[in-house]
């Protein structure tokens, strides 16, 4: 390709006029190339590439209408995180607190707390558990390939909500 550009220049014409031995090879400038294996283009993720190009992010969470599917899903994650928090507090508290946990429970029993407060606390403990429990079963059903149509997802979602709320109330009243 470079050869063709060189053919049009004045230097080449002079070269032709002066030289006796004229051939295509004499037009070719000796070039030393450092050939190396091609490096594949850098694989960067979608976010990184678009940040590099300076593009703003499209609105997503701010514009998408809440649906049962997404709300139940994020609630499953949220209740899971809440239950993990309870478990972590128990595990850490057992080691860190000055008194033993049964000791604190006896103090709580003797304190004669209002039953509304007690029921409220029990509900805060029971409902995340029952929600995560029944929705967990729903997830396991999906993993087995069941109830995967949209209608079934909605139906099982409502059933799960009723079961979760119902069993939480039942547990609190025990």
């Amino acid at each position, binding site marked *: 390709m470079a050869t063709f550009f060189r053919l049009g220049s004045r230097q080449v014409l002079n070269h032709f006029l002066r030289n006796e031995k004229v051939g295509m090879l004499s037009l070719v400038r000796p070039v030393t190339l450092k050939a190396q*294996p091609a490096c594949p283009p850098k694989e960067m993720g979608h976010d990184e590439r678009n940040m590099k190009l300076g593009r703003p992010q499209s609105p997503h969470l701010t514009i998408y209408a809440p649906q049962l599917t997404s709300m139940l899903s994020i609630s499953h994650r949220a209740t899971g995180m809440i239950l993990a928090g309870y478990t972590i507090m128990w595990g850490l508290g057992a080691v860190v607190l000055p008194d033993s946990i049964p000791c604190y429970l006896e103090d709580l029993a003797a304190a004669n707390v209002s*039953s509304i407060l007690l029921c409220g606390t029990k509900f805060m403990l029971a409902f995340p558990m029952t929600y995560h429990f029944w929705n967990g079963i729903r997830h396991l059903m999906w993993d087995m390939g069941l109830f995967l149509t949209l209608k079934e997802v909605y139906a099982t979602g409502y059933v799960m909500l009723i079961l979760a709320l119902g069993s939480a109330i039942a547990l609190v009243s025990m």
Partner: protein
Amino acid sequence: MALASILRNASRVQAGALPRFFFKPASVAVNRNFSSSLCPNYATFNKNSNLNLGLFVPHSKILIAPQARMMSGDHSRLWPIEKALSVSLLVLVPAAIASPHFILDNLLAVAAVAHFHWGLEAVVIDYARPIVVGNVLAKLALFLLYIISATTLGGLIYYNVNEDGIGQTIRQFWAIKGSGKEKTADSSGSEKK
């Protein structure tokens, strides 16, 4: 033309430095003998595809630190174990509370911690992404999670061994009666006379 001859011979040459320019590879089926050790900053190229998506990336002056990708291998081995653990928890939680026992309490402790560890790991990996929080914080968050899980498991087992056990404690807490309930119990008791 020269470029094509370089590419054709590329696989035969032991190369040196990284190229300082990005070039569009020719649409020739080139031998994919990429030695990724020679290109340390690049992710491993997909060796199965013969199609080279020639990205014209200009030599960028934006120096973003190479993003760590938090994909450490195959999750497919762990997935069935996670599911089996979830099923076991469906049984263990009611059982440990309904009929407290030392073994059930400890099984519950181990299963619960493993379950929430994997769950929180998914949360951390989803939200504490290197592109959002930086490479250091992403790794740190995961490290902290391991610490928290280990500590919680230790604390729960300590509790099972030295105190009442998880199941018994839940029953004890649930048995606490509030002041309002005592009044109604008294009134119904007096009516029964």
